[in-house]
């Protein structure tokens, strides 16, 4: 009895792999019990269900995205630290090849798809409707579904660590290595199916925000009067809609190979393994811009706000973003110049890649000149935005160096490449979301984050970041390739690797200090009673902090770029009383109802996904049937909206001091 139980444990829970797995098991069980215990003790189950799990409010969904992104940052960061621990010294035996392969695979996948993406989507959920003067997104119900699909996909991906084993073919999951012949466990299935599920959610988000921005702007806000962050999200949404279906198809093809014996990417039977690299990067390169353009949007807002000056070159900013979006679909081959597609193909893709530097450079100089003749205020949010400029520049310019195809033959897959993409993704996306977090936090929670602790977190993280990734450029030139689980002594790689590991610990410390800042600020809140703590320029600062459920009691009228700034500083007139709400204009507000279905459908997706991963069709197929039933019932749901009465609005606005 005990023996067969242990056998089951070995088969499904990898108990034979030793203490690391056992510790994880115990920690997971304890954490889950802890959460359940706290919720029960504080009698918060009802609150959790009514206020959060069933909500369709874009602000709450945004907050949940960001909380999940933080959790995933922690997981992905731990993976990163484990990688650095293994590589700190030559010939290290801390991890074996198999475990190391799993760790770098989950590090990359989580950081891109389950950290960067939800963090960006979280910020866009919070800011976009408020910036355009809307009461919610175009499809609030779909928005909730997007979130829960992401959430359960992330959960599904993460449980692979303790149930069945993590994927181990790299976040790029190249075939045929990731195909059924070379990767026999369930790990790769976890990768394929959880990415598939979160991808569906992301496509829905893209459609949702495209429609929201095109159809729901306040009167007077033409496209060329939109805030730059909203512009960046519009462009990002379009990229998502074009790029993510490619990922969906690609993942499905490899899934057919793995689950049903198809031969799309196999070595034998006429499969074409190199096609995977092409398809993956046709999605993968635009994906890079999906996570970087919103960060560009954040920087535009933050630099302009804290220079107390208009954004320099608004039109050029828009045009360059659109140019980047178009070019992003024409450069995918630069990820594998070394596949030897021929001189003409490589020359073309070298050129198209270098071209991206032009619009990016335009944006860089526009940010710099936004500060020209401004009054720069060094808040934490601004520090992240400022640090972006030199650090991202290094990443971007080494990107141009990598675009030189013949030189790339020497950089490719070396630590030079690893350094490059960490410089663009951390200095771009991560600095961007941190900047946005400090910037919009008051709008989310009604208090600002402690600036002193925030600045400590910034300096620790930023300096450590350079310590971690700058040496990698040199290691690459010294011949160290990525994804090596260990390296011999005597090549001179040891000291640089040690510096990197110390840097990585510093980044971990910076993250902890930032989390401490959040905890500290919640316990000692510095309340934002004005709704406009930064002397902001766009509409989200014209309403109270935190934003009321319906966002705007009266939809504002927009007269130009930086609508709220114009209300505060009208030309040739006395300033209008900008904060007061005109009581006579208040009408009942039409809002969507909460719904439990997005949550249930996503749980069903999770169950179905788990079934397909293990090829337990008795579980997978019923799961999918529940999904279909959920969608079917949604089609016949007619009573899904309500009105907020004038009295309630007056009450809320009076409490916020607006009436």
């Amino acid at each position, binding site marked *: 009895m005990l023996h067969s139980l242990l056998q089951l444990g070995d088969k499904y829970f990898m108990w034979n792999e030793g203490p690391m797995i056992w510790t994880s098991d115990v920690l997971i069980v304890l954490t889950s019990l802890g959460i359940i215990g706290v919720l029960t003790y504080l009698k918060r189950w009802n609150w959790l269900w009514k206020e959060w799990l069933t909500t369709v409010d874009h602000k709450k969904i945004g907050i949940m995205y960001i909380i999940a992104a933080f959790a995933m940052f922690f997981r992905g960061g731990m993976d990163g630290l484990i990688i650095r621990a293994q590589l700190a010294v030559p010939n290290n035996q801390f991890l074996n*090849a*198999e475990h190391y*392969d799993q760790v770098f695979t989950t590090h990359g996948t989580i950081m891109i798809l389950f950290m960067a993406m939800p963090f960006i989507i979280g910020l866009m959920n919070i800011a976009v409707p408020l910036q355009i003067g809307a009461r919610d997104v175009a499809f609030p119900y779909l928005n909730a579904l997007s979130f829960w699909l992401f959430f359960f996909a992330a959960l599904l991906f993460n449980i692979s660590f303790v149930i069945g084993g993590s994927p181990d*073919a790299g976040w790029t999951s*190249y075939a*045929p*290595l990731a195909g059924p*012949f*070379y990767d026999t466990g369930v790990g790769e299935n976890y990768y394929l199916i959880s990415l598939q599920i979160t991808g569906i959610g992301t496509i829905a988000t893209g459609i949702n925000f495209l429609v929201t921005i095109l159809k729901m702007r306040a009167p007077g806000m033409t496209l060329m009067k939109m805030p730059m962050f909203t512009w960046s999200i519009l462009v990002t949404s379009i990229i998502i809609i074009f790029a993510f279906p490619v990922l969906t198809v690609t993942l499905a093809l490899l899934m057919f190979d793995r689950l049903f014996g198809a031969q799309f990417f196999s*070595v*034998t039977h006429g499969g074409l*393994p190199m096609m995977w690299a092409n398809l993956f990067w046709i999605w993968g390169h635009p994906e890079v811009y999906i996570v970087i353009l919103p960060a560009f949007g954040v920087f535009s807002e933050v630099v302009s706000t804290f*220079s*107390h*000056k*208009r954004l*320099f*070159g*608004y039109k050029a900013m828009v045009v360059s973003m659109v140019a980047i979006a178009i070019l992003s679909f024409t450069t995918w081959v630069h990820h594998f110049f*070394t*596949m*030897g597609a021929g001189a003409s193909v490589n*020359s073309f893709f*070298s*050129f198209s890649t*270098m071209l991206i*530097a032009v619009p990016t*450079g*335009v944006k860089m*100089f526009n940010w*710099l000149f936004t500060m*020209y*003749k401004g*009054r*720069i205020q060094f808040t934490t949010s601004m520090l992240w935005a400022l640090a972006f400029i*030199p650090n991202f520049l290094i990443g971007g310019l080494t990107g*141009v*160096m990598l675009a*030189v195809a*013949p*030189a790339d*033959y*020497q950089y490719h*897959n*070396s630590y030079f490449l690893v350094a490059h993409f960490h410089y663009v993704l951390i200095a771009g996306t991560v600095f961007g979301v941190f900047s946005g977090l400090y910037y919009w936090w008051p709008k989310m929670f009604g208090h600002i984050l402690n600036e002193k602790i925030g600045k400590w977190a910034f*300096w620790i993280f930023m*300096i450590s970041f350079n310590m971690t990734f700058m*040496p990698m450029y*040199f290691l*690459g*030139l*010294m*011949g160290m*390739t990525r994804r*090596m689980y260990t390296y011999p002594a005597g090549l*001179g*790689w*040891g*000291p*640089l690797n040690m510096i990197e590991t110390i840097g990585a610990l510093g980044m971990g410390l910076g993250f902890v200090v930032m989390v401490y800042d959040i905890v500290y600020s919640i316990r000692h809140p510095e309340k934002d009673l004005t709704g406009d703590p930064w002397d902001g320029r766009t509409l989200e600062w014209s309403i109270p902090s935190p934003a009321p459920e319906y966002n705007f009691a009266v939809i504002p009228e927009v007269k130009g770029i930086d609508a709220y700034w114009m209300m505060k500083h009208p030309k040739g007139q006395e300033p209008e009383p900008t904060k007061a709400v005109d009581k006579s204009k208040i009408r009942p507000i039409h809002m969507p109802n909460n719904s439990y279905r997005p949550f249930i459908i996503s749980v069903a997706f999770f169950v179905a996904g788990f079934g397909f991963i293990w090829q337990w069709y008795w579980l997978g197929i019923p799961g999918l049937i529940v999904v279909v039933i959920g969608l079917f019932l949604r089609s016949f749901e007619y009573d899904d909206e309500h009105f907020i009465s004038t009295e309630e609005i007056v009450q809320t606005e009076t409490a916020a001091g607006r009436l």
Partner: protein
Amino acid sequence: MQFLRKRWRAVLIFALSTLMLSGCGKIVVLNPQGPVATEELHLITWSFGLMMIVVVAVFALFAFMLIKYRAKKGSKIDYQPEQEGNRLLETVWTVVPILIIIALIIPTIKTTYALVKPPSTGTPVVIKAVSANWKWMFQYPGQGIETVNYVVIPANRPIEFQLDAIGPMNSLWIPALGGQEYSMPGMLMRLWLQADHPGTYVGRSANFSGRGFVHMVFNVIAKSPSDYATWVQKVKTTAPAMTMADYQKLTAQNVVHTMTFSHYIKFFGPRNNSMNALYRAPNS
């Protein structure tokens, strides 16, 4: 701030001195040992130089803005909150990057086309490099011999590596001699390299191919033409011919030591080597 600036400097000095200690001579890409690597280094230096122009310009502007326009109490500096653009400036920073890219793309295209041709006029030596998880097999069709996990080449003659793979993709990279190219199953590729002098250089697979990937390291031994001829003769007369058992061991998924054969069996059968997958470390 003062404290932080000091710390920055300390970090920088520490990093630089460690780099010096670790020996610049070990930055193999910057010390090319053959015409291909030299040509690639030229492009690396050229692109680095062009990029430094941008770095200097942006860093200088960045520092200028931060110092001059930071908000101070009672500051009387020029403050123009409504300034929204400047056509001349915007044209400058669109045109200058385009010029830089033109300066970069021309040599890039030239070299890209040059590298698909032999690097020099000598008679090329053809070596078929086959990756099979997790080892490199080097077959010499002209000589009929095969080496495993090391390769001997004559110095000063162009080497035509024909890349093939059994199983997943790998990448043949000998940084001292030049850049890499993928080895792919069923897709024969060609990589031209050449060594200027006799010597030993390190090569490895640069594309992740599973658990044993890190063991796909090999030495490239460049010999003078006469030494090379002697070596070929010696292999032909003293090394064993490849047996069927050797063949099976080599095409299976495993890690092996260096080997030498006076005669090799041409590759046949499925390009999958996972059927008899047995992972063995080299010292087991």
